[in-house]
């Protein structure tokens, strides 16, 4: 039953992503980013992309690298601070941005992975997020109707994965990764450690391989820290 999802490299994994594609990127801030695939996309120069990701990276890391090369047409995110080039492109009209509440962003991934077309949420009711959105009343409350995402590709980063695509994430590098893995029509996973089927405990899989189409072991992870905060050692 060993369905093999392994591809040779990041270049191989992303080679059929066309200009104009919609891509989801796992990660929160700079934590849990698919660094190898982002580098491969920058190298290949795929352009006119719609990127769905909680954040837009910083100037010289994460999706910021693609922004710098003007590969991104539209950014769908919940928070896009800490990024001067992003700000420049946005203010100059080169870049479209759609801001979505973080929980709504996460839930729109979840329902895509669960085959649910839309979900009612309270987040944003009474705010400008609600403008133009369908609403439904229930139990005396008004809910916004939010749609499942429809993305051709999802690119995620896991800690460990096996050749069948089963994934395990580490600590808060989990964040949006398993959700986007479920939501992509084609899901690409890069992992720090690629193992054989049977090496991962079936009870401890975060993303079952059925949701993953391509997997490879990444390399040279920089894992940059955005806010290094420490305390004095005792």
């Amino acid at each position, binding site marked *: 039953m060993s369905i093999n999802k392994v591809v040779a490299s990041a270049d191989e994994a992303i080679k059929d992503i066309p200009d104009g594609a919609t891509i989801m990127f796992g990660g929160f801030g700079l934590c849990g980013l698919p660094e190898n695939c982002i580098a491969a996309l920058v190298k290949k120069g795929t352009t006119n992309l719609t990127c769905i990701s909680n954040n837009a990276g910083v100037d010289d890391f994460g999706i910021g690298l693609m922004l710098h090369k003007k590969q991104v047409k539209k950014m769908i995110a919940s928070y896009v601070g800490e990024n001067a080039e992003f700000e420049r492109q946005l203010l100059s009209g080169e870049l479209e941005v759609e801001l979505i509440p973080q929980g709504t962003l996460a839930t729109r991934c979840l329902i895509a992975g669960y085959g649910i077309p839309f979900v009612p949420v309270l987040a944003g009711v009474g*705010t400008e997020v609600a403008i133009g959105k369908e609403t439904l009343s229930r139990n005396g409350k008004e809910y916004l109707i939010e749609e499942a995402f429809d993305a051709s590709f999802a690119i995620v980063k896991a800690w460990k994965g096996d050749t069948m695509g089963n994934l395990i994430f580490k600590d808060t590098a*989990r*964040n949006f990764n398993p959700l986007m893995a479920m939501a992509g029509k084609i899901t690409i996973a890069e992992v720090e450690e690629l193992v054989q089927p049977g090496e991962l405990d079936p009870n401890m899989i975060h993303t079952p391989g059925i949701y993953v189409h391509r997997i490879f072991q990444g390399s040279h992870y920089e894992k940059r820290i955005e806010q290094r905060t420490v305390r004095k050692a005792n």
Partner: protein
Amino acid sequence: MGLTKEQIAQRISKELKDGYYVNLGIGIPTLVANYIPEGINVVLQSENGLLGMGPFPEEGKEDADLINAGKQTITTLPGSAIFDSAMSFGMIRAGKVHLTVLGAMEVADNGDIANWKIPNKMVKGMGGAMDLVAAAKNIIVAMQHTNPKGESKLLAQCSLPLTGIKCVTKVVTDLGVFEITPEGFKCVEHAPDVSIEEIKAKTAGRLVIAQDLKPVAI
């Protein structure tokens, strides 16, 4: 001389009850973690997917894979649990988090809050703020009573784009403690050195003074 940021956080810490799960926003709210009362066990939730947020790591022990919602390096504690962002906001939406402490730019006397956007300035996004204010049962705002220009941040109506409507339960500022009531802001405690007159002068929204008004006990 109103309350310091630390004193605002210390006052809010008195709202904690044993067994509470708590989400603390960035800024003054984060400081609340430093004043958890003796004998009170609470679990801090970080909306990027962690229950049981511990202190910052010791120097040299930072782990890029372990951060809080403010992207700061943190630690776990015995009994911590990690989960994805959908479950994280799921438990918030389902009312499992007992208390949320947030900063704000403006609060209206009906409980509306604005804390994510200033028109004509760079918009950074709402992050998880809209989800939190729409879902949490008990939302306390920690902020300065006035903005840098000296204008009241406690208003009859928010002038900035809203984050959520009718959701704030209590506001703690450098001047005192204000409950949101049908009559507007109800001042129930005042900073020791601050007069009722100063509070009235600096509060633009409807204000009522509690019968049993007392000084903030720090």
